[in-house]
């Protein structure tokens, strides 16, 4: 029983990480939004699986909130933005695609290295997926640093949050419910504010290329 649980969690975590890699491979924002949506679906599924096998009913609520927030609400808002800025594709990122992917692989290895004490310490059957969650965190950080479009950076940030949520679910079967709800609220608020700013950037600069944001130096 436990090993099926374990395998499912690792499978889910791998899928979550692979959806994160899509941000480095594809160029269109449509692909990014779809990848984020599917990543959130898999994340909710993993949360549901942990709730089922771990006998923790609070996690069902968390999974539900994840679905509502990150599968329904945020992708819808992202699609609206993407329809507005559809012409902007990530054509010349700071680091090119092939190199980015290799760096992502190395970052995942690094994630494995730093989570070794965690995996060694934990007794939970879900511990094998934690390095993958950490890998997603590092890869998302890399996405934000190396991409030029504001929308890509926002999706990268959202995936970073997904990675940390996955780490919390796998490591501790979730954090206390009230804190979790507060976190969701914060993420939603943060995303809404970012959305406002992207519209403002577009109005002021006629493009969402953050390379244009270079007036303030030194």
């Amino acid at each position, binding site marked *: 029983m436990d*090993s099926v649980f374990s395998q499912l969690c*690792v499978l889910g975590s*791998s899928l979550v990480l*692979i959806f994160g890699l899509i941000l480095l*491979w594809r160029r269109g924002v449509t692909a990014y939004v779809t990848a984020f949506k599917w990543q959130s679906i898999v994340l909710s599924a993993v949360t549901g699986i942990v709730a089922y096998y771990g006998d923790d009913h609070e996690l069902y609520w968390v999974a539900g909130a994840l679905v509502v927030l990150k599968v329904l609400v945020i992708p819808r808002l992202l699609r609206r933005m993407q329809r507005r800025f559809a012409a902007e594709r990530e054509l010349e990122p700071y680091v090119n*695609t092939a190199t980015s*992917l290799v760096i992502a692989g190395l970052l*995942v290895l690094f994630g494995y290295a730093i989570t070794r004490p965690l995996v060694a310490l934990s007794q939970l059957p879900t511990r094998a997926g934690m*390095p993958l969650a950490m890998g997603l965190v590092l890869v998302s950080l890399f996405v934000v640093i190396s991409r030029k479009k504001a929308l890509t950076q926002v999706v990268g940030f959202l995936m970073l949050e997904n990675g940390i949520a996955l780490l919390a679910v796998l490591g501790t079967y979730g954090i206390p419910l009230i804190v979790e709800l507060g976190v969701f609220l914060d993420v939603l608020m943060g995303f809404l504010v970012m959305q406002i700013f992207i519209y403002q950037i577009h109005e002021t600069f006629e493009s969402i290329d953050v390379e244009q944001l270079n007036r303030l130096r030194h």
Partner: protein
Amino acid sequence: MIGYALEVAQAALALFLAPGVVGLVRWMKARLQNRRGAPVWQPYWELAKLFQKEVVVSNNASWLFRATPFVVFASAVTVTFFVPILAVPLPFDGVGDLLVVVYLLLLGTFFLSLAGLDPGSPFGGMGASREMTVAALAEPTLALAIFALALSAGSTNLGQIVARTMSDPGSALSPGHLLAFLALFIVTLAETGRLPIDNPATHLELTMIHEAMVLEYSGRYLALIEWAAAVKLLIFFSLLGNLFVPVGVSMALTPATLAIAVVSLLAKFVVLAAAVAILETRIAKLRLFRVPELLSVSFVLALLAVTSSFLLR
């Protein structure tokens, strides 16, 4: 003794079936495109025709040009001795493992690239450089993908990997295996020159890689190279089928199990050929500068597979 005979029989079977597999893929593609298409054994007629034709060699070509077809063919046939096609364990398992297989395949590619450069034609040089770009990313991925399996099996010996997976069927669904399968599938497409990396039916300068290297060949040399390419496709299909889904691979060397092995092998070929045909029909060829991106994705998948297997040992 029986083992050695079986090895030879296995290699002969591979040689015999290879053009059929290529024909099967072509036939399925044709059917998917609503054409009648050539029959499945058309490649056999083509090989027979080529063996009877005259060989024309460029004046600028050296000994390398004449030697390459034999090297390529020999390396492909040698690999069939080491790959678990019908049964494990086999006597040559002690000599050949994962790394030997990879290097033999690379030997063939290397000589083919040199032969592309040898006659001094522009198409050949272009094909050689493109092929090297693809091989530079595909070969490490191939090694890594199979290495992911080797980690859980505890040995890089291909026969042992198959035996291990057969004894522990649950591990076939582990993330390491699935990721390695994905990575290996993409490498198969790259190494055998299939869409979306290379179009095996084109001779347009813009799109050809493998065809560009063999453009100067004719007659029996071309026949040997085409046959070797078909054997390579069969080898990769065998790897994909037998390493990941070793259903039906014969452990004892009895006629009954061998018969089952042949039948299951054919079944796997049909499935894989269908997959390749469907993929080739649905996906357009990638622009050349996008090919390294796809191969990097497969490299990262293979890397993830290795780390997955390593952690879940």
